[in-house]
């Protein structure tokens, strides 16, 4: 209670009460009941067990109060056999083959094969006389060594195949390495260099062509507003200037 007060709990104001009911005289009989239960568990005799568990039940007559029709047990076995033999599925093997095929049923005991006279009597004595040479294969050393070698060989090959399979480079797993292994390694380095150079030239030409075209387009755009006569006059002046430069040039040499 002090603890509850220290905790500040409202429970400190409640009086502890047991709300559950216990059957009358439960505790008075509990020790005996448990002891009897233990004795019942330890015994193997059914009658003794019941006296420990329930003296009341052990005193009740075990005679069944139910009535049984007169003569029931005397006739039961005949009734059961009648039911079994009267069942539509009931047949002996003889009856079964007779119903399925009277022809086969009639042929059942007719054996067409003949056996030489005295065959079975002689068979037993032949088996006794014949001595079979026993060759032990386990004693041959070379045989055991061969088997061991084959087994080891199989294990080694299996291991190598397993390792190779794991290390195998596929185009899906590692495309760069696959190309390096299957393409690059197989081609001459000089050839590669040549290819790369050609590729660069092609690219440069393409670039020059492309820049030339771009320049022409630019000039056209710039000159679209300039009249044609002015362009002709400019070109004529340019030619004259060139020829003068050539004469000067040659005179200076």
């Amino acid at each position, binding site marked *: 209670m002090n603890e509850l007060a220290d905790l500040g709990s409202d429970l400190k104001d409640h009086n502890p009460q047991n709300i559950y009911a216990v059957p009358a005289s439960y505790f008075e009989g509990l020790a005996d009941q448990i002891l009897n239960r233990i004795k019942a568990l330890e015994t193997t005799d059914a009658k003794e067990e019941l006296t420990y568990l329930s003296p009341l039940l052990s005193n009740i007559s075990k005679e069944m109060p139910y009535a049984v029709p007169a003569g*029931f047990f005397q006739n039961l076995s005949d009734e059961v056999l009648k039911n*079994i033999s009267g069942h539509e599925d009931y047949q*002996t093997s003889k009856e079964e083959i007779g119903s399925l095929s009277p022809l086969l049923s009639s042929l059942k005991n007719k054996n067409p094969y003949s056996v030489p006279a005295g065959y079975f009597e002689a068979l037993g004595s032949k088996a006794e006389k014949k001595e079979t040479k026993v060759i032990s294969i386990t004693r041959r050393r070379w045989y055991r060594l061969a088997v061991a070698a084959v087994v080891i060989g199989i294990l080694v090959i299996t291991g190598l195949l397993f390792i190779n399979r794991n290390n195998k480079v596929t185009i899906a797993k590692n495309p760069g390495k696959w190309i390096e292994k299957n393409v690059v390694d197989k081609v001459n380095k000089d050839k590669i260099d040549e290819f790369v150079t050609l590729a660069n030239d092609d690219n440069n030409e393409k670039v020059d062509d492309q820049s030339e075209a771009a320049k022409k387009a630019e000039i056209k755009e710039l000159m679209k507003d300039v009249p044609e006569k002015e362009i002709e006059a400019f070109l004529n002046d340019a030619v004259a200037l060139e020829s003068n430069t050539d004469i000067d040039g040659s005179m200076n040499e």
Partner: protein
Amino acid sequence: MALTTLSDSELLVEFRNPVTKERAFTSIIKKYQEKLYWHLRRMVVDHDDANDVLQNVMIRVWNGLENFREDSQLYTWLYRVATNECLTFLEQQKKRASVSLSDVESGLENKIKADRDFDGNKLEWKLQLGIQQLPEKQRIVFQLRYYDEMPYEEMSRVLETSEGALKASYHHAVKKIEDYIKNH
């Protein structure tokens, strides 16, 4: 030699011989019919039902005895067949009862009370009513131990349950029935 004096093993040998099969089977029925009948009757209450189930049991025995491995006693095997057949029958009864809800006569307790010799004041009738309060499997455990005094070891082979569980079940069953009788 009369087959009724033969042991179970000898009867099995005779049963496996096509010439003496039917005679051996008749002897087996005569030897165990009452034990099996009462085992079933206590479970199903009604004589006609018990007879039906017993007939089914015997047909199963006829068909299955050839392959009986003799790893248990013959009567243990017979009880197991009878118990399984009985539980199947009760299961079918329950299904029929759920279909026809107005059929109150299907209750085993009502069947007991409907017996012409029923007397509710007599302890043996109260005992039967008390037994019917138990769940099916517990009822079987109680009856095998109480009426047939079957050892727990054999019972565990019949019911395929551990001996410990059977003991506990039986002890609880006794308590429940005793309480029922005291309160009714």
